[in-house]
């Protein structure tokens, strides 16, 4: 018996298989809106799936979301599942979701690092990186958020394979990263990239690899300000916002910088909530509150993209 999206427990953490199975269910329940696209495979040959939300058209402008690029940040994959369901069930009901999907496509990669995610379930809950073997080192894995061709090799990344911030031998060495690069470049009409992490309560935008303001700094800053303000209206969770370099530290080779450098103006990264007690081990009863408060901020960005074509 096929499970149903209506009985799936969105307030619980799930394994890779459970989430992949749920994705099939979502597609089954919304066949005219949702489809599943395989964009590549991981180092350990797991499929890299993207959910495509589309009401038709050809190569429409699109919004990209990814969660779980750092595998131990379990709250992000869980928020990805909740958000995908929100979009699927909201089309035709929620005017904002309907307006977005009547003009644009949305792509969500819920588990951007499946090898790492499987490893967090089987062996080491604290695993952050990919699972690729590094020649000449006993240490495994590359930080997939330092592996992008945007200031690759610069500050805030490491050349040491044993480091959690290891950038990899060259830009896009990781299949998980290259798959996204190929997909976004191949698509050619992606207008926003939102990459979701945890846990510092921030909404960040380019640049990360240098402290200079991005050409669209003012617009991105205003949009981030509105998004975090709307996020705070739900439970009062206070986010900071700004460029990565100015808000945290200079970090080279990140997703959003690559996207921005490749023409995606609306390029953001979220750091989801921190209750101050659990770090990555946010209890599952925090999943729905976190997803619920993140939603208005995501919607702000998506609506802004819809209303500001370029």
């Amino acid at each position, binding site marked *: 018996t096929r499970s149903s999206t209506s009985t799936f427990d969105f307030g619980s953490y*799930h394994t890779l298989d459970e989430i992949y199975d749920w994705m099939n269910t979502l597609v089954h329940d919304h066949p005219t809106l949702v489809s599943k696209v395989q964009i590549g495979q991981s180092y350990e040959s797991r499929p890299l799936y993207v959910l495509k939300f589309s009401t038709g058209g050809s190569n429409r402008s699109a919004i990209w979301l990814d969660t779980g690029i750092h595998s131990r940040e379990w709250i992000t994959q869980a928020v990805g599942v909740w958000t995908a369901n929100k979009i699927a069930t909201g089309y035709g009901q929620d005017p904002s979701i309907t307006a977005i999907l009547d003009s644009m496509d949305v792509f969500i990669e819920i588990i951007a690092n499946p090898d790492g995610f499987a490893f967090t379930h089987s062996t080491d809950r604290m695993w952050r990186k990919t699972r690729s073997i590094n020649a000449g080192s006993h240490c495994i894995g590359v930080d997939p958020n330092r592996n992008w061709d945007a200031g690759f090799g610069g500050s805030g990344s490491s050349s040491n394979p*044993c480091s959690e911030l290891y950038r990899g031998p060259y830009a896009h060495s990781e299949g998980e990263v290259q798959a996204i690069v190929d997909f976004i470049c191949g698509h050619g009409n992606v207008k926003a990239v939102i990459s979701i992490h945890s846990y510092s309560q921030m909404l960040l935008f380019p640049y990360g690899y240098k402290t200079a303001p991005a050409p669209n700094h003012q617009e991105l800053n205003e949009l981030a300000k509105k998004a975090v303000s709307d996020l705070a209206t739900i439970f009062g969770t206070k986010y900071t916002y700004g460029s990565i370099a100015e808000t945290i530290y200079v970090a080279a080779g990140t997703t959003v910088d690559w996207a921005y450098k490749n023409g995606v103006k609306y390029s953001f990264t979220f750091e989801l909530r921190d209750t101050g007690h659990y770090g990555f*081990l946010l209890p599952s009863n925090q999943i729905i509150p976190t997803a619920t408060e993140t939603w208005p901020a995501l919607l702000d960005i998506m609506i802004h993209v819809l209303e500001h074509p370029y």
Partner: protein
Amino acid sequence: KKTFVGDQVLHITPRDEEQITLLRLLDDQTHPEVNYWRHPSILGHPADLLVPSSRLQEIKGFLDSHNISYSTMIEDVQKLLDEEMKTMIKSRR
């Protein structure tokens, strides 16, 4: 399966740039078992450091000797992981 019995996460609040630089010394190259969950960045942003039980005394000594203030965010990481697993199994049922 790797376990984390007695491991702690320290919530560290650097006072100045010098302390941030010192905290960066505790990186993977010099102390492969410690693991920053949140890296030392700019002033005003705390850092969170996962420390295995076997290194707790040494790392806390390092922080104390440099007068770097910290609190314990997670007393025993494995207890939280056990709780997480229990919740997942319950949900699956």
